């Protein structure tokens, strides 16, 4: 049986490769905030309080572009609503925790952490203390995110833009799902989601980020019904 600290450590190791994209993205996020003219403390506060890369950038861009607070907050809410899906999946492994522990661990639920936790915990269903894995991924991502946005705030965008490191973001997510390309039903759901996102891209408040998964999950539901 694995000890708590070993499980936590496994979680850390699982998300480390994703730092290749998380750290540049964090630096870019911090630097963009400063470029847009925000107070450094305020830029950092978005990392601490909102803690969600894409939504932080959109939030600052909207406010600096003169959008109302309501529009900025709505956009953040819409972009981050995908965490509801992550929570629904992870709740299987977190349901035995006390309410307080659930409240704490929730803060650390992030894309890559969710994906790696889901992958590992599905294959290790009998693991005791699975939440240490989730925590290991989440805390690691949290620290790297905080440190990288702070360095972006202080040093500015010291990563040359020509490198096109923004491309690392789709790559990190591609790395997450590439293994599931072996399963045709998953490939079908991925294609529905991908094409839906291209069609819905201009929907208001960046809502394609949540609308496309909803369309894809409905497609998955129909697929499961037809299979039976």
């Amino acid at each position, binding site marked *: 049986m694995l000890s708590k600290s070993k499980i936590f450590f496994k979680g850390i190791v699982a998300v480390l490769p994703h730092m290749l994209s998380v750290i540049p993205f964090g630096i870019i996020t911090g630097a963009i905030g400063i470029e847009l003219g925000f107070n450094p403390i305020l830029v950092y506060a978005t990392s601490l309080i909102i803690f969600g890369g894409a939504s932080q950038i959109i939030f600052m861009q909207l406010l600096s572009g003169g959008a109302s*607070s309501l529009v900025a907050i709505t956009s953040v809410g819409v972009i981050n609503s995908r965490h509801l899906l992550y929570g629904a999946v992870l709740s299987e492994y977190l349901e035995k925790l006390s309410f307080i522990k659930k409240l704490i661990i929730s803060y650390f639920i992030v894309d890559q952490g969710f994906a790696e936790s889901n992958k590992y915990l599905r294959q290790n269903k009998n693991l005791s203390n699975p939440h240490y894995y989730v925590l290991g991924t989440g805390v690691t991502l949290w620290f790297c995110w905080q440190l990288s946005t702070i360095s972006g705030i202080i040093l500015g965008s010291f990563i040359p833009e020509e490198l096109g490191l923004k491309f690392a973001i789709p790559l990190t997510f591609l790395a997450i799902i590439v293994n599931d390309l072996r399963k045709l039903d998953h490939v079908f759901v991925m294609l529905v989601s991908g094409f839906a996102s291209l069609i819905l891209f201009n929907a208001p408040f960046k809502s394609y980020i949540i609308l496309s998964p909803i369309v894809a999950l409905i497609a998955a539901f129909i697929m499961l019904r037809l299979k039976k």
Partner: protein
Amino acid sequence: MTWLSIIISGIVTYFSRMAMVALIDREMLGTKVKEVLNYVPAAVFPAIIFPGVFFNDFGLFVEITDPKIYGSIVALVVGFYSRSVIATIVSGLLSYWFIIFLLLK
């Protein structure tokens, strides 16, 4: 005002992380819903990947010869066979850089 917006955005985001974990009892989810939840990664991540590859910074479709498309194909093939996150990201970036710095220069 900006501070208030950050705090409200933070509360909204935290709520989205916490709601299904702490407020919903799993018994409430039917078996069908649980089955569909298996597809959450397949349903969520392509919606981030596709626009990231197929749109440019201005929200316009890139050309079919865009380096990002080639980089993604390399990453896809390498990732599929290696099953390694690092190999997927690195191969995608390196092939992308190879095109923009060596072939297009």
